[in-house]
């Protein structure tokens, strides 16, 4: 659905060229929830705004449904933006309009529906985001979570195919964040809406995204399926992000800090596995199938979006032969294993 090719953006600050994006290439599929994560100032906001040209790239192409939108004239650009919803960290609602008025505003400007049809659509959207009884309130009378729900309803008004989320939950408390993320996931599934979001929180990526790109210093440093990036982060920035949201994973990636190395006698192995195998009695199977003994040092069983996963840090003791038998068993179960020490 979206293809970004060789995207560059430079700003001129005090006569000097400052690069915000460098050689960004991305492909985002239809119906996918795609996350872009990075520290503040990494360029994620500029990248997101390139998708509806709120920011014009200096060079490169942005293809949506095969068309290079950087070549659109202003009329086509307006038409394109009406098909792309966007929600914001600070909601950006019109304070002078009621909740219903805010949702009606993009419909009114598109002009494709008459007043009765618009009222019907507004009622439908209010019900979708659960704000029916707040229709006639003004934004300042709402809580942060309710404001973002209005933002979502407004963004969906013209039935977009793509929703851009600019740090949509960063101004909300954790509980409200979860409810907004659930709503976004519902919408993604119900309407097959493609969602591109930027965030600095790994937790948001874990809850919502199918794939993720990590951006640092204006470059994509790592990208892939969320589970892969989360369980096997390669770049230092990604590891930092994982450590912040999930200290346990970080400890298992680098157990040197967590354990007194001199007390370890055997081979330190980290196992990671996804899906159905999470529910299999792997450890008792290992104990029965090989003479190697093992100690569980750390472990986690959780889920990313709806995919269950597990990771275990085990210390194996036994002969080389025994250990290779263990690895053969693990391979049979399609359990990823890496020797850490």
């Amino acid at each position, binding site marked *: 659905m979206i293809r970004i090719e060789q995207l560059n953006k430079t700003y001129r600050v005090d006569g000097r060229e400052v690069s915000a994006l460098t050689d960004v290439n991305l492909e985002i599929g239809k119906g996918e929830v795609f996350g872009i994560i990075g520290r503040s100032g990494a360029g994620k906001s500029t990248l997101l705004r390139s998708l*509806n040209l*709120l920011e014009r790239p200096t060079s490169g192409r942005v293809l949506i449904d095969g068309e290079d939108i950087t070549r659109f004239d202003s009329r086509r*650009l*307006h*038409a*394109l*933006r*009406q*098909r*792309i919803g*966007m929600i*914001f960290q*600070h909601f*950006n*609602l*019109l*304070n*002078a*309009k009621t909740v219903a008025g805010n949702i009606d*505003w*993009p419909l*009114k*400007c*598109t002009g494709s529906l008459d007043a009765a049809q618009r009222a019907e659509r507004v009622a439908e959207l209010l019900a979708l985001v659960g704000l029916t009884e707040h229709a006639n309130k*003004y*934004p*300042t009378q709402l809580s942060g979570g309710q404001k973002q729900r209005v933002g979502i309803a*407004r963004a969906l008004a*013209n039935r977009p195919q793509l929703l*851009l989320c600019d740090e949509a939950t960063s101004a909300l408390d954790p509980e409200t964040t979860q409810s907004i993320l659930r709503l976004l996931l519902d919408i993604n599934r119900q309407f097959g809406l493609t969602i591109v979001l930027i965030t600095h929180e790994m937790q948001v990526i874990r809850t919502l995204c199918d794939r993720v790109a990590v951006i640092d210093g204006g470059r994509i440093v790592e990208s892939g399926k969320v589970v892969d990036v989360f369980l096997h982060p390669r770049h230092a920035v990604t590891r930092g992000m994982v450590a912040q949201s999930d200290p346990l994973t970080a400890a298992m990636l680098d157990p040197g800090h967590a354990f007194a190395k001199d007390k370890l006698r055997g081979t330190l192995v980290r196992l990671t596995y996804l899906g159905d195998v999470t529910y299999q009695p792997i450890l008792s199977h290992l104990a029965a199938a090989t003479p190697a003994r093992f100690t569980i040092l750390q472990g986690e069983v959780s889920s990313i979006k709806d995919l269950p996963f597990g990771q275990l840090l085990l210390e194996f003791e036994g002969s080389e032969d025994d250990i290779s038998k263990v690895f053969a068993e693990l391979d049979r179960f399609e359990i990823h294993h890496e020797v850490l020490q």
Partner: protein
Amino acid sequence: MIDLSMIEWGDIAFATWETLVMTGVSLLFTILLGLPLGILLFVTASGQLLEQRGLYRVLSFIVNVLRSVPFLILLIVMIPVTVLLIGTSLGVEGAIPPLVVGTSPLFARLVENVLREVDRGVIEACQAMGIPTHRIIFGALLPEAMPGLIAATTVTAITLMSYAAMSGVIGGGGLGDLAIRFGYQRFQTEVMVITVALLVLLVQFIQLAGDRLVLRFSRK
């Protein structure tokens, strides 16, 4: 010391009415001229919706020049233009053109400042929705700025009232004219006191009404 018996109350009532007419009509024209000018200043400024640095500089320069001319001088300089426009430079009608020219640049600048206070994110959200610029200005920007615009109008109305009184010097009508002819030239201190008291009352009333309206339109 103050003898109210010699006051012609009819004259004072009529002068008050004239002051109100001068202020009201001038305010109307000031808004008609100053509001579009203020919007234009805002949208053409650097980094705004319709950035036009050249046009902004020219408009901004004109506004500054007009605002730097003292009103008393503007009253005199404007006389030929006023005669050309409405046939006379005297009375209520004669005072209106210089009043409008004197306050429109002030009002335009106030409008520009009020619009700058509108959250940029709101405008960005409208742009992201693909809403055409003219609709963003009239459907979002101005309604969002309404309390500020009303406050700016209140300030301008009060300035107009004091300028209207000043126009009495060159033969404009109203309370200012009365104060100068009777209070100053004929040493009738009573007339002076009453005109000043009435102006104070009128200004208080305008400010009060303005504040009420601001409150009604505020959603903060």
